[in-house]
């Protein structure tokens, strides 16, 4: 929404929504819903509208509605999106196909299970807070130790869904975890040897084939692909240094 979304006329849009409930709506199917879309409406708003006025059983994840929690990632017209910040009319199609993320196990409808994602995050050393990059020159009141802010990654799973390798190899750590690992290395509050070993392992940084679809899919400007490559550069340097018996 470039001009902060001034109101305009509504437009009817058909939503073709992936439906699946194990043992109930099984095999899956696509249900069609018509929604009168106003210019501010996001894909999540449209789903809320469908759930509250057309089908109360439609299941999808959502929480913060402003790209902070990362629960509402899904696919619209085949592309990973964060539904709370994806404007429907800006998708530019009269029919919008809404599907769950790939790779992550399906729970029902548009809901996927994030357990496997969280499992891989832990060893990567992901931390919630980081030192803010914002305005380091600004003065600080004495009581504030250092300005801090949350990591950009909101753990939505979009990159995992977009990556051609995670799609076929469930053991590959995946873009989000490896990007987190890089951030942990940079922050340096974990043992670098442990993190290097993790990055350098069979399922780590080298499995990536640089399709860079993770970065294209990331709704939070993390650039997981770029961080992964930066991680490789560091690991390469580490390996070379180790080869010559230098201190890391």
């Amino acid at each position, binding site marked *: 929404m470039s001009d902060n979304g001034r109101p305009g006329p509504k437009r009817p849009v058909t939503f073709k929504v992936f439906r699946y409930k194990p043992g109930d709506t099984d095999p899956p199917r696509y249900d069609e819903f018509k929604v009168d879309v106003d210019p501010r409406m996001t894909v999540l708003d449209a789903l809320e509208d469908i759930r509250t006025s057309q089908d109360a059983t439609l299941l999808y994840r959502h929480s913060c509605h402003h790209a902070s929690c990362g629960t509402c990632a899904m696919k619209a017209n085949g592309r990973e999106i964060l539904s709370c910040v994806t404007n429907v009319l800006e998708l530019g199609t009269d029919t919008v196909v809404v599907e769950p993320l790939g790779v992550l196990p399906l729970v029902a409808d548009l809901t996927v299970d994030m357990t496997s994602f969280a499992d891989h995050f832990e060893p990567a050393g992901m931390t919630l807070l980081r030192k803010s990059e914002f305005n380091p020159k*600004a003065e600080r009141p004495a009581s504030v130790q250092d300005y801090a802010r949350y990591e950009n990654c909101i753990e939505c799973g979009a990159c995992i869904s977009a990556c051609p390798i995670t799609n076929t190899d469930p053991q590959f750590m995946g873009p989000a975890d490896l990007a987190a690992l890089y951030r942990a290395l940079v922050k340096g509050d974990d043992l670098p040897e442990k993190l290097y070993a993790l990055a350098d392992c069979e399922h780590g940084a080298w499995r990536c084939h640089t399709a860079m679809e993770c970065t294209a899919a990331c709704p939070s400007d993390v650039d997981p692909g770029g961080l992964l490559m930066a991680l490789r550069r560091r690991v390469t340097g580490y390996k070379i240094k180790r080869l010559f018996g230098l201190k890391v």
Partner: protein
Amino acid sequence: MAEKFHVLVIGGGSTGAALVHDLALRGLRVTLVERGELTSGTAGRHHGLLHSGGRYAVQDQESARECIEENMILRRIAPDSFEENDGLFVAITDEDVAYRGAFVRGCAECGIPTREFSAAQTLRMEPYLNPLVKLAVQVPDATLDCWRLPMRFFATAKHNGADIRPYTEVVDILKRDRTVIGVRVKSHVNGQVYDIGADLVVNATGVWAEKISEMAGVRVPVRPSPGVMVAVRGRWCNMVINRLAPPGDGDIVVPQRALSVIGTTEWYTDDPDRLGLPEDHVQKMFEKCGEMLPVVRTAPLRAAWSAARPLIGDETVAGGRELSRTFKCYDHKERDGVEGIVTISGGKGTTMRGMAELTANVVCQKLGVHAPCRTRETVLLPYGAYYQ
């Protein structure tokens, strides 16, 4: 009924999260049902402010005291969950400056530490502020993550044996005579409808409290009061920026990640499921918050949404901001003569733990359980532990 618990909590928001955590720590067999994803109602959608209480220090000192107390407790039990950057109340107009005395006094009365800055000092700390800023007062506000903080409570509760069922909607309250004995739920995962028994049911559904209380044949005086919030790209302040004025529309900017969340407005609704997004409220956000941080008017919009506060008040009360932000726990045995159901409502994200403590005390007293509250000192697990 195949399953029976000591306590069944309806509603997986921040209150429900803190309540199952509290009850699990007290050793009760507890389950929680939530119709959608956890924190998909009001809890997830708030502006992410860990209140210092400053906002209420003049008009609503009960809420203010609750806020500062819980603020300090949460920092202790959920380390690394906050952007501990504090907050500023900034005066732009002479009217704002005139409010300073009452504000600082109110904060002192409620135990909220303050520190005052001149215009020049303020601008050195927050260069994007309106250059007309006259002075500022610092308070211990912070930014929290509306999804990950409640998830820490859920994670800890789960590891202490609580049973948490998202995607499970209550379709009926089961009663024997005038006693609630359980609930009928529908799973939105597989469409199954089944019953869960409980010695006590807690209605922690916030703005949806009325829907549940109707099923149970009891009454709760909750008024859904939505507000509009807008997130713009860019982090335009290091600290939380509040307007040094009585509570009003568009009086806060909360920096969160690489966003600035500006808020908020207030109206009343009867339907918490269809809040809508009044365009004039959105524009008002840009206008009013722009008075403090002019840059937010031109910053690219990231999201605009509504969230409904579960305020306590009767239909007879007209105003919105006059209603207290405090919380209350209702035992419907006393109010409506219905045994086996308790309602907790009101309050805010910051006071989630306190609301849970109050409710758990009522629950334990009703069930005849003697177990002290331990949530004040129990450090929470990381949110990721919910998935392990």
